[in-house]
């Protein structure tokens, strides 16, 4: 009997993951669509929406590397977004950079500056645990907004700083911003993927699940959190450096904007907090919707209402986000398929033995 059972062992266990062909195929289709998007829809209004979607895509992917993987929800990453914007605007005038392709050279500089700023900030904030951390990040954002208002000689105070937009013609004006944004998004997603698959990323996930236990298992929690914090800040700095020359001006209330922080959280939660692609899906859908609403209704208030309601619904109905819900559906599908197989198999064996 026992030998028979051993020979009867089933083949490899069923894979609960979506098949590779489907995954890479859909990724490829999305990639082609993203590259072709501004060529196909060359209307400047549409491509403007595309550029904003890219800026949010970079931001939310960076945000997710820290907040999604470690479970520390940061509601103050506008600080680094703002640092990127102010650094770009200030350096562009300080170094007399002529508006054009050269402006994009400031992106790596802003990334470095945002990363440097993130070290002491992260060191201070990460001394406290989750809920106090959320509140501290909010306070920090207001500190930076007040700094931007108060250091008039550098930041221009409430007058803000102007950036001369590049002299590209209106039809193709958005294109360079779009493709630079797309490139940054790819870099951010690759970084997120590498982090997720590394030992370092596993440490972050362990912190999310149980920080004290992770620590007792030998993970240097403070160091791990700080590194992730800096990585995420770097991408927010990049997004800011892309945003400032695109919009053409930098103001304290828009650079350090509480609504921006909320947007990142809503996007990540909608798509799936802590997953690789979930936040990107959220960013593409919500950022486009946001810009569309702004262009159609003019004021931000209608969008605030939609936002609030949407966020409440997501938290109530899909607390895990859309992407995990979809992959859960797939797993249910696999389980059902396997069960059907198992139900039909024993009958066949029984027939054969008789």
């Amino acid at each position, binding site marked *: 009997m026992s030998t028979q059972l051993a020979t009867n062992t089933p083949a490899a266990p069923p894979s609960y993951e979506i098949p590779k062909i489907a995954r890479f195929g859909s990724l490829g289709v999305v990639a082609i669509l993203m590259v072709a998007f501004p060529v196909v829809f060359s209307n400047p209004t549409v491509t403007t929406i595309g550029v904003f979607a890219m800026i949010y895509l970079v931001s939310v992917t960076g945000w997710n590397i820290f907040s999604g993987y470690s479970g520390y929800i940061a509601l103050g990453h506008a600080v680094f977004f703002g640092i990127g914007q102010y650094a770009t605007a200030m350096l562009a005038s300080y170094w007399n950079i002529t508006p054009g392709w050269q402006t994009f050279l400031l992106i790596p500089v802003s990334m470095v500056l945002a990363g440097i700023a993130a070290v002491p900030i992260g060191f201070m904030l990460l001394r406290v645990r989750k809920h106090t951390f959320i509140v501290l990040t*909010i*306070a920090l954002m*207001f500190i930076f907004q*007040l700094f931007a208002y*108060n250091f008039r000689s550098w930041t221009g105070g409430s007058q803000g700083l102007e950036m001369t937009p590049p002299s590209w013609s209106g039809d193709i004006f958005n294109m360079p911003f779009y493709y630079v944004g797309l490139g940054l998004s790819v870099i951010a997603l690759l970084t997120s993927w590498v982090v997720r698959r590394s030992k370092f990323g596993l440490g972050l996930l362990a912190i999310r699940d149980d920080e004290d236990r992770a620590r007792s298992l030998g993970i240097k929690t403070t160091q791990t959190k700080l590194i992730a914090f800096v990585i995420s800040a770097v991408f927010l700095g990049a997004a800011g450096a892309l945003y400032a020359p695109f919009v053409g001006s930098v103001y304290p209330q828009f650079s350090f904007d509480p609504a921006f922080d909320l947007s990142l959280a809503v996007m990540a939660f909608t798509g799936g907090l802590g997953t690789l692609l979930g936040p990107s899906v959220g960013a593409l859908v919500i950022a486009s919707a946001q810009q569309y609403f702004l262009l159609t209704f003019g004021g931000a*208030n209608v969008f*605030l209402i939609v936002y609030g*309601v949407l966020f409440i619904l997501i938290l109530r109905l899909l607390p895990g986000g859309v992407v995990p819900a979809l992959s859960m559906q797939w797993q249910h599908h696999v389980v059902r398929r396997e069960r059907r197989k198992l139900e039909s198999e024993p009958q066949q064996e029984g027939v054969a033995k008789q």
Partner: protein
Amino acid sequence: MLIAQAVLEGVLVGGFYALMAAGLTLVFGVMDIVNFAIGALIVLGAYLSYTVNVHLHLDPFVSLFITTPIMTVLGFAIYWFLIKPIKTDRVVMSLLTMFAVATLIEGVLDLTFNSGLVQIHASYINNSLKIGGLNFPLIYVLSFLLSAFLLAMLFLVTYRTKFGRSLRASMQNPVAARLVGINTDKVSGITLAIGIGMAAVGGMIFGTTNAFNAASSYDLISRLLVIVILGGFGSVGGALVSAIFMLVVQDVVSVVWSPVWGSTTFYVILIVVLLVRPQGLFGKKGVRAQ
């Protein structure tokens, strides 16, 4: 003399912040909920008082008899429909839910009242008492007295009634409280309703002493959170002390240095204190270490 005047105003305005921070910290203590929407709810209370004042011509203090019940019911509704169903990761999920509620309220207020600044009017709003060379603006004094009265009531309820005992039990140990037969859901709902009902009073005070619009909520919530963190989450006494302390510091800095640095100092103190004592001035270490 200028500094004495600044200290006085800091104390008077601090009363309002102490009342609001007490509500915030009680709600946190009972159910681990950071009521992030309190700023938006205070502004909502201010707009309700403003509307009653403009359309029914009632005195702002009388308008409270209309606005407080409305806000209390709203508080119950928020608890029942949004907070109670949350099952997992309550701290973070409830904070985000309240954030969403705040956004929704801000959007509705901005849509209904536009973003122009308004202020609640009353005939005596610019009157003031002069005592020993110090200037006591009447509305600040009245607001302070009202806040102090409500805080005293809050203490009475918390320490001298059966509900207060259930409340403190739920704060100390929710599981044990449930085991001895306390309906912690009911206690939580009532606590949140009280906290939000007090936002109606806070709103009236805020609306008579400041010009406000829907976006004022950000300034309020950030200050209140700073006060509550500084006092230590869950510590009512800490909230009172740090509210008065912070407002006095802010007003003195505004007078001595410059008004633009007043609010910055406010946040800088927070960072400095937390570097030394991450649990806040009066918080207990380890109790809320999660």
